[in-house]
């Protein structure tokens, strides 16, 4: 090797190895040709060429290391592998489509389940410090009553009982109607009557107007706060605060409008349209009420449960006649809300986890089959000097890219899937309105997809790194590639086993939902239709009765009905029934 050759080869070291591999020969040749030409013009010219080559290599070599000329090289080894993988996948569109389709369906299903579990079970309720909110229920085992309600004076006492209990509010929900006017027809609304501290207990504030004051409960007709949806339904007037609103026979004053994300109701399937304050501190009313309790910030759930239990015991001891066999217990507000769907959702999460495992094994098996097709290519690459880690790297890149793309497609399918779930899901699915795939969940699905691809590629990566020319020759001569076949058979066995677990979990989920949907209501529900009418707009009882009679008569005229029955609460709070057979 001449001194010039040594010098120019040394300068090549400034360039990154992959650039050297691709362009090194040409660079060396060009430097040599330049030096040869300079030699004819004296040694000073040669020295100048050597120095110019040094400057050029420093500038361009380091420049190439910092910002490679070829764009995909700028992304490092992973970038190069990704470029090669993309090119290979483009050559096999059928394989690519099949894998992407499988991953889209699988990861899309995972996205829907994850969204439902996250939004229903995990996401905190939209109130201030929602962990400190509890529902209080009455348990009377001798009456087989486990979710009984408290009377208002007991709730006032509970609110003042101190210890870990900061405050308590009572509430009840009912139907009402907004009468027709020149601009609109009459329509039903869901109204909540609650103690005036309800918004303080929940930690919510109206978006417009003011919250309830203590004395609002004493005003008749009670001042009301509208939900955002109700405000919009009434025309979204910016001057709504202070305006009168007729509900049934009474005219109420609107004092505020709640923000759009606020929702609170007595039952899961109803959204409250109007909130009214009520003061029963002086013992009026014998009705029973749902109770919401706010714990002190530093109180643990156990302390709250014990305090509520002790309060119940105290009540039972003070008034043994009224409270015989009576006990109180507190349940976290979220826990109480989701208790009906919790087992089904946990079974679904279990199924989704197994679905991911099946997808991983399925992808591993497909990638291994594809790697086996490229066995000769791997062997030749090894023989030409490609290192084991480089082959592992490239195979892992292929799996990760497929998983990533599957994750993106799965997240998109999940957006559509969650909309379908909300549209087709039961009306009393808790927190139904919050179920939507957001960017955080989409990101998780994409990351899960990429990790799934990476782990699926691990088996073929290890297998392909072990291939060498000699092993290929001996395998094809003696065993015909038995090792890959064995691996594929094991993967298929694992896939079948996991699919069985998935199927049985799916069966459990279906049974669980069946039980939820087909709960025996205690009567033959087949062929029964219910119709809700509001008679609250009638101030006189006979008017309401006559209205119901006319409606019943009209229904009787409907062909193929057998029985029409109606019932209502009279203005005096009496239950009235009429049946026509």
């Amino acid at each position, binding site marked *: 090797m001449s001194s010039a050759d040594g010098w120019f080869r040394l300068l090549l070291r400034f360039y990154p190895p992959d650039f050297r591999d691709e362009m090194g020969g*040409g660079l060396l*040749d060009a430097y040599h*040709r330049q030096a040869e030409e300079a030699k004819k013009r004296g040694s000073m010219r040669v020295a100048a060429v050597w120095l110019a080559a040094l400057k050029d290599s420093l500038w*361009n070599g380091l420049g190439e290391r910092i910002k490679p000329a*070829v*764009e*995909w090289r700028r992304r490092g080894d992973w970038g190069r592998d990704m470029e090669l993988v993309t090119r290979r996948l483009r050559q096999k569109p059928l394989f690519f489509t099949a894998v992407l389709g499988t991953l889209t369906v699988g990861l899309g299903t995972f996205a829907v389940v994850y969204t439902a579990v996250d939004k229903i079970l995990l996401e905190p309720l939209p109130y201030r410090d929602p962990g400190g909110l509890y529902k209080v229920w009455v348990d009377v085992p001798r009456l087989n009553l486990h979710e009984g309600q408290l009377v208002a004076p007991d709730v006032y006492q509970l609110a003042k009982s101190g210890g870990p209990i900061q405050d308590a509010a009572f509430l009840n929900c009912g139907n009402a109607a907004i009468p027709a006017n020149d601009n609109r027809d009459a329509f039903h609304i869901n109204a909540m009557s609650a103690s005036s501290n309800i918004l303080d207990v929940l930690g919510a504030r109206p978006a417009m107007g003011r919250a309830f004051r203590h004395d609002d409960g004493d005003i008749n007709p009670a001042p009301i706060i509208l939900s955002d949806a109700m405000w919009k339904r009434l025309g979204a007037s910016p001057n709504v605060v202070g305006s009168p609103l007729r509900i049934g026979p009474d005219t109420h004053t609107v004092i505020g409008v709640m923000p759009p994300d606020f929702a609170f109701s007595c039952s899961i399937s109803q959204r409250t349209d109007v909130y009214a304050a009520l003061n029963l501190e002086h013992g009026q009313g014998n009705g029973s009420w749902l109770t919401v309790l706010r714990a002190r910030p530093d109180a643990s759930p156990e302390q709250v449960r014990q305090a509520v239990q002790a309060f119940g015991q105290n009540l039972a001891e003070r008034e043994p006649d009224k409270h015989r066999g009576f006990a109180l217990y507190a349940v976290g507000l979220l826990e109480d809300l989701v208790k009906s769907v919790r087992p089904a959702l946990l079974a679904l999460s279990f199924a989704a986890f197994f679905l991911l495992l099946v997808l991983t094994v399925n992808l591993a098996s497909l990638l291994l089959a594809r790697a086996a097709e490229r066995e000769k290519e791997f062997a030749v690459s090894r023989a030409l000097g490609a290192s084991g880690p480089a082959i592992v790297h490239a195979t892992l890149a292929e799996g990760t890219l497929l998983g990533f793309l599957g994750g993106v497609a799965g997240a998109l399918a999940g957006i559509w899937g969650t909309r379908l779930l909300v549209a087709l899901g039961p009306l009393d699915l808790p927190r139904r309105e919050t179920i939507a795939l957001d960017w955080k969940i989409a990101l998780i699905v994409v990351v899960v997809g990429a990790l799934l691809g990476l782990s699926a590629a691990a088996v073929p990566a290890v297998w392909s790194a072990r291939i060498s020319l000699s092993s290929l020759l001996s395998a094809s001569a003696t065993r015909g590639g038995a090792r890959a076949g064995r691996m594929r058979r094991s993967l298929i066995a694992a896939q079948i086993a996991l699919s069985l677990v998935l199927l049985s979990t799916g069966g459990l989920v279906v049974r669980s939902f069946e039980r939820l949907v087909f709960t025996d209501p205690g009567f033959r529900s087949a062929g029964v239709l219910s119709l809700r009418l509001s008679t609250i707009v009638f101030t006189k009882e006979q008017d309401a009765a006559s209205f119901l009679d006319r409606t019943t008569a009209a229904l009787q005229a409907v062909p193929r009905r057998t029985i029409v029955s109606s019932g209502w609460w009279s203005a005096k709070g009496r239950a009235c029934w009429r049946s026509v057979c």
Partner: protein
Amino acid sequence: MDRDRRTETLLPLRPVEFQILLSLAGGERHGYGIIQDARERGEAAPDIGTLYRALARMLDQGVIESTDSRPGSDDERRNYYRITDAGLRVAKAEARRLDALTRAARLGGLLKKEAK
């Protein structure tokens, strides 16, 4: 349509890229041959490192390709390159762009007007 869009994304070319396409439009060349061509045209020849980084980029873009043919007993380290159809389109588009700029410079009085 796509072809035109792709050509446009590569414009404007760097001087070294235009020099390479200009040389290769005249036939296959090796790297040092491109430098010699530039000198013969009276242009400042690019540095060797700059030239080879541009060649690597243009190979990736598909505007040039390397060829296996080399005349007689030529050095086997020496790679020959040729212009592709896409490369020819890019070179012509760049030449039109430069021509328009030159005409604008003349109209603006930055260059002397051509003698009629």
